[in-house]
């Protein structure tokens, strides 16, 4: 086998979405050398670039607001499970990051010179800034890329897939990566390692994020001994595009239309139905994501769904000039797909969108393992059982900045980069293996896992569905085995899939086991067999890996014990 290539750096940042890039910028500003890597291109994949519109922040600019009000709304949406310190950090530091992004030229939409805010469900007032039209994510990504590119002390490299973190004497000292484009193994030694790999939405067949959101970071941290929290809470975005087939558009694209124009959710009788689930919309967009998802799935279950298994979203009552004013060029992109909103409705259905759970950290973004931090969606706890619209990008920016700051503090206290080649050997040996001669089809196995998760570990679960899923996860884990498929040459897709299966199956098991253990319904976790929210479940579930294999789930009292809002 070829000798691994070696990198030494002060701070290693894994993942180049908003959280990773902000972390890199902040650590570099504090004088650190930073190695920023991504499994695909720098600043292109992940969830950030996919964000369509809202970024929640109490700017107190266009209209009166205060971070404490945003904080209260975040706690209410979280149904009693938010980590108070993280939710406070997100809301209190949000304005500074949003203004810094503004100074960097992101181009937040303005009215009369002031940054303007849209109203989004769950907020007590208009609080969501955005970049028109449907450009928030791409604008945030490209702005941060511009700043990263100018920072001389940030080295940025794509096509690097982190296989494992390097752990020696109880501390994380970097990572072993597989360079996808060449097939070469790489060891990266770092004084501090920040996991900013985003969430796990790729576990589900229909999802709104990039291919690289398979929960890699959760699996890396778990194997390194860190804890995961709230893994059962997967947010489904209620109105993901379902039909007719649209290309070149993000499936969550209808959300901005609803912010601006309301729109109507209709069943197959042409009737509005959300009032039957406790939220009469009356032409406004006020239903939160957990309730919206539940209402749509129950309507479909009752036989009142659309032909493809969702419900209808209609803007036919909105005059064309108003549609065009709100959405300009997007109307033409829809026309290119054969869709005229003045004449037809579209079909929408819940789609995996975000993960409230993740790596357990404190408000400095540190895990309990020295040398290891997390940032962005990879961190669990800030949003409890359900995330408010707009909190994800804010969280990415704020947590990224904080992680960069904390890492820089550590770096100053550490003399030289810890190089621990012996601690990297086990993973290097794994990468050096040649796979079996006739492995099963990895792309099909990944699809099978996504199907299982969608059917049995979706927004509505039960003991029987979750047990069925765990059996299937076991079967797939057995088929995946311990020996990587493929030969590890340049862009070996089979090996890439195998490494993804290794991580995704671990993370899928975390979600299913935590969901099975939580015998109540709350926020994004709805048990058909335990429909009510129970006070004794005002606890977070924390997962640790025991003996490198078994998942150990503990209950920890939620940081706010007060009863959740609903």
């Amino acid at each position, binding site marked *: 086998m070829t000798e691994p290539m070696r990198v030494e750096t002060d701070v290693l940042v894994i993942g180049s979405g908003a959280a990773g890039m902000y972390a890199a910028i902040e650590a570099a500003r504090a004088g650190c050398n930073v190695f920023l890597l991504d499994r695909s291109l720098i600043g292109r*994949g992940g969830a950030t670039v996919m964000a369509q519109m809202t970024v929640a922040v109490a700017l107190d600019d266009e209209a009166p607001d205060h971070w404490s009000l945003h904080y209260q709304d975040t706690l209410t949406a979280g149904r009693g499970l938010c980590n108070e310190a993280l939710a406070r950090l997100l809301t209190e530091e949000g304005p500074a990051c949003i203004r810094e992004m503004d100074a960097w030229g992101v181009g937040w939409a303005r009215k009369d010179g002031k940054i303007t805010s849209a109203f989004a469900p769950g907020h007590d007032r208009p609080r969501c800034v955005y970049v028109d039209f449907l450009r928030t994510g791409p604008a945030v990504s490209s702005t941060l890329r511009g700043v990263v590119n100018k920072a001389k002390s940030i080295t940025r490299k794509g*096509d690097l897939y982190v296989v494992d973190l390097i752990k020696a004497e109880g501390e994380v000292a970097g990572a072993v990566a597989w360079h996808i484009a060449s097939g070469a193994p790489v060891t990266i030694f770092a004084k501090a390692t920040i996991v900013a790999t985003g969430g796990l939405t790729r576990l589900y067949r229909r999802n709104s994020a990039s291919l690289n959101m398979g929960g890699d970071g959760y699996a890396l941290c778990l194997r390194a001994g860190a804890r995961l929290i709230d893994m059962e809470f997967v947010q489904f975005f209620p109105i993901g595009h379902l039909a007719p087939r649209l290309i070149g558009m993000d499936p969550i694209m209808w959300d901005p239309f609803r912010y601006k124009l309301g729109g109507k959710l209709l069943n197959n009788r042409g009737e509005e139905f959300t009032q039957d689930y406790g939220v009469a919309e009356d032409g406004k967009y006020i239903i939160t994501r957990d309730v919206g998802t539940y209402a749509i799935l129950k309507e479909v279950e009752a036989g009142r769904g659309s032909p493809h298994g969702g419900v209808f979203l209609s803007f036919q009552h909105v005059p064309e000039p108003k549609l065009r004013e709100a959405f300009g060029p997007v109307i033409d992109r829809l026309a290119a797909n054969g869709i005229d909103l003045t004449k037809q409705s579209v079909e929408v259905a819940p789609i995996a969108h975000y993960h409230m759970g993740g790596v357990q950290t404190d408000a400095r973004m540190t895990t309990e393992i020295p040398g290891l931090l997390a940032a962005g969606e990879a961190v669990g706890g800030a949003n409890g059982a359900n995330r408010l619209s707009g909190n994800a990008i804010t969280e990415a920016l704020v947590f990224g900045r904080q992680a960069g700051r904390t890492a820089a503090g550590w770096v100053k206290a550490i003399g030289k980069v810890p190089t621990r080649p012996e601690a990297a050997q086990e993973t290097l040996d794994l990468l050096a293996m040649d796979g079996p001669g006739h492995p099963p089809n990895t792309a099909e196995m990944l699809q099978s896992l996504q199907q299982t998760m969608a059917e049995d570990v979706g927004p509505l679960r039960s003991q029987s569905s979750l047990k069925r899923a765990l059996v299937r996860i076991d079967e797939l884990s057995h088929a995946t085995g311990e020996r990587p498929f493929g030969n590890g040459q340049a862009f070996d897709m089979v090996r890439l899939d195998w490494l993804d299966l290794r991580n995704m199956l671990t993370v899928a098991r975390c979600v299913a086991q935590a969901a099975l253990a939580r015998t109540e319904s709350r926020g994004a976790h709805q048990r058909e067999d335990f429909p009510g929210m129970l006070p004794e479940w005002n606890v977070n579930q924390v997962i640790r890996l025991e003996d490198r294999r078994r998942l150990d789930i503990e209950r920890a009292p939620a940081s706010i014990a007060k009863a959740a809002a609903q």
Partner: protein
Amino acid sequence: MTETATLSIWRGADKAAGHWETHQVPFERGQSVLDGLRWIRMHKDPTLAIRFSCINANACKECMMELDGETVYACTARLEPREMRLEPLSNKKLVRDLVTEIAPPVERFAAKDK
């Protein structure tokens, strides 16, 4: 009869020593070329190398390739019920099959980064 798209795909890791493979893909109106390539990986051959990230949004810009000699994004090029020829970008360094080096040189990892 169900319609099919015929995808002729260039395969190889060396520009001078590649070959063409042809796959029949079930065709549904509205699908993208990337949908067809993903179908091939799931049902026929998972070794087919393609680069993509965002799947459908045309946000990541990673799925650039040549369709009948023209540069396209596979996620926005429509699948059609005819023969479609897919090749890696001819003006970029080949990695494998339909994958080329599209990152700016400074963002590519190489031995000199040690």
